[in-house]
């Protein structure tokens, strides 16, 4: 097991380095400098600014400095647009917010999705099943950027129950809509995967044996059917997590929750290269880390996988 984890780590680390180098080079291959503005700066001033941010050094050296800073000190450097901000400061301010509603959404998507899928499979071809399948199919076409305005129309504008945006230190009325908007489409996918996987498991021989020896239905489902059912679900968690990370950008933008997504979009619009680079790397590192976790979790209960 340990050697498997180590081997996966050996793949994850170069991936992360490739990501950092790729993003860095893309940023520097872009035409123009981040300090080009409508009003041309005197060459001396421009040279001073470039020296301050280390942009006058040769590119390989800049890349090396950046890599060393990120890897050893977790330092993404200063913002190019806001002189009093650093990328680390932005992450420290916004990331806890994103993490809070992101974790909640993930839990909601998994718990609700699995329960919906299992219920549908156990009551196959009843109205509960049809309802669950119908809901999850249409919910798949409702990504977060469609859900968010629909929720605001219903709960803020028509009913007036929930605030249409803001964070307020995570008070629960402010958390509900972001969590629903972010989790719905993933919950739907998880429900669909769980349902079909559960149906397949329930038709397999070992479940028939369990039934034949007279086990009660609940024991069959919980003790025997649940574990193999969860395998495809676990392998979907990686892509779901990536989707949620990406979706959090929309949530931060639409609900003004103050997470890193809004900073990301603003940095993209302002061409604030260092903030964009830092946040892209952060999102990428989270993705790689989570894929690693999913692989390990996936390998753990499956007797077919040997390390």
């Amino acid at each position: 097991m340990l050697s498997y984890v180590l081997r996966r780590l050996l793949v994850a680390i170069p991936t992360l380095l490739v990501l950092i180098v790729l993003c860095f080079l893309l940023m520097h291959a872009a035409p123009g400098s981040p300090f080009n503005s409508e009003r041309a700066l005197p060459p001396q001033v421009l040279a001073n600014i470039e020296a301050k941010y280390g942009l006058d050094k040769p590119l390989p050296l800049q890349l090396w400095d950046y890599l060393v800073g990120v890897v050893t000190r977790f330092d993404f450097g200063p913002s190019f647009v806001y002189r009093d901000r650093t990328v680390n400061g932005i992450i420290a301010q916004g990331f806890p917010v994103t993490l809070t509603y992101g974790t909640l959404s993930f839990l909601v998507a998994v718990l609700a999705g699995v329960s919906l899928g299992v219920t549908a499979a156990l009551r196959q071809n009843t109205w509960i099943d049809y309802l669950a399948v119908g809901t999850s199919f249409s919910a798949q076409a409702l990504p977060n950027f469609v859900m968010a305005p629909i929720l605001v129309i219903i709960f803020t504008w028509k009913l007036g129950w929930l605030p249409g945006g803001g964070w307020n230190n995570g008070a629960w009325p402010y958390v509900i809509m972001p969590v629903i908007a972010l989790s719905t489409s993933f919950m739907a996918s998880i429900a669909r995967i769980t349902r079909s996987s559960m149906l397949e498991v329930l038709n397999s021989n070992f479940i028939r044996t369990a039934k034949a020896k007279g086990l009660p239905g609940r024991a069959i489902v919980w003790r025997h059917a649940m574990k193999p059912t969860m395998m495809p679900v676990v392998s979907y968690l990686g892509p779901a997590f990536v989707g949620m990370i990406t979706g959090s950008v929309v949530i931060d933008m639409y609900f003004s929750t103050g997470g890193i997504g809004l900073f990301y979009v603003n940095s993209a619009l302002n061409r604030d290269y260092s903030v964009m680079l830092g946040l892209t790397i952060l999102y990428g590192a989270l993705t790689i880390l989570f894929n690693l976790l999913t692989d390990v979790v996936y390998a753990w209960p499956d007797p077919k996988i040997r390390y």
Partner: protein
Amino acid sequence: MTQIQTRTDRIAEATTDAAIHGRSLWRDALNRFLRNRAAVGAVIALLLVVAFVLIGPAFSRFSNEEIDWALMGDVAGQGGPSLANGHYFGLDELGRDLYARTIQATGTSLTVGIIGAAVAVIIGTLYGAFAGYVGGSTDNLMMRAVDILLAVPSMFIIILLLVMFGRSFSMLFVGIGAVSWLEMSRIVRGQTLSLRGREFIEAARAAGVSTPKIILRHIVPNLMGVVVVYATLLVPQIILTESFISFLGLGVQEPATSLGALISAGASTITFGTVWQLAFPLFFFLVTIISLFFIGDGLRDALDPKDR
């Protein structure tokens, strides 16, 4: 004697007839697809959307860039959908005709989806077929590279490209195409591996056909079933990606527009009560996406030999 002769002739005729009217794989798949009611309904819905994009402009009384000065001061009050003043879908927040804008946006989104999928399919198929056919360390190296690129969150790379090299249509295609071919190449490689050992490939090699020609003439045509299914499922994915980017304001720029951009604009003005600005683009978005999902599912059931 002659009677017997004609009878055998007739039988021979009938049997050759039967042989000629054999069913090909594609004919078979078409029959299976036509029996799937949801998929056929989805095809009709999609054709209606395409017809709306192609024929719709003929019924429009306004262009997509024209501002209706008479109504623009009171969009929330008088700018709603109305047959009387010719704004069938109402006005957008600047006083432009939403009917013309929705046609333009639906057209953009469909184009992006189809061209993006085509780019991804061409690159992915050639890459995967080459890696799978050549095999060995070349294959290993090529697929490792794909694995590493797949681990990178693609949406952020597309946005990075768009920001760095300007938000243009062509950059959008390059960005989306550059990341969507990865999954395709893996699927194609897997299929190629199973084709590689077959007799007809061996025969081609023995006859001295060159590697590129074997890949193009013998491998790729045999991959078509998988490729078609995957391409159909890729189109809605790409439309979703593009809409996501346009929703953030990082996609196509004015005066061009896409469904994502219209949904974004509509979503930001709903507090003024202009629900139609969200409802019409959203309707066309959902119809397009859902029908493409159903068509993809139907094609998979019809073409995928695994689930038969």
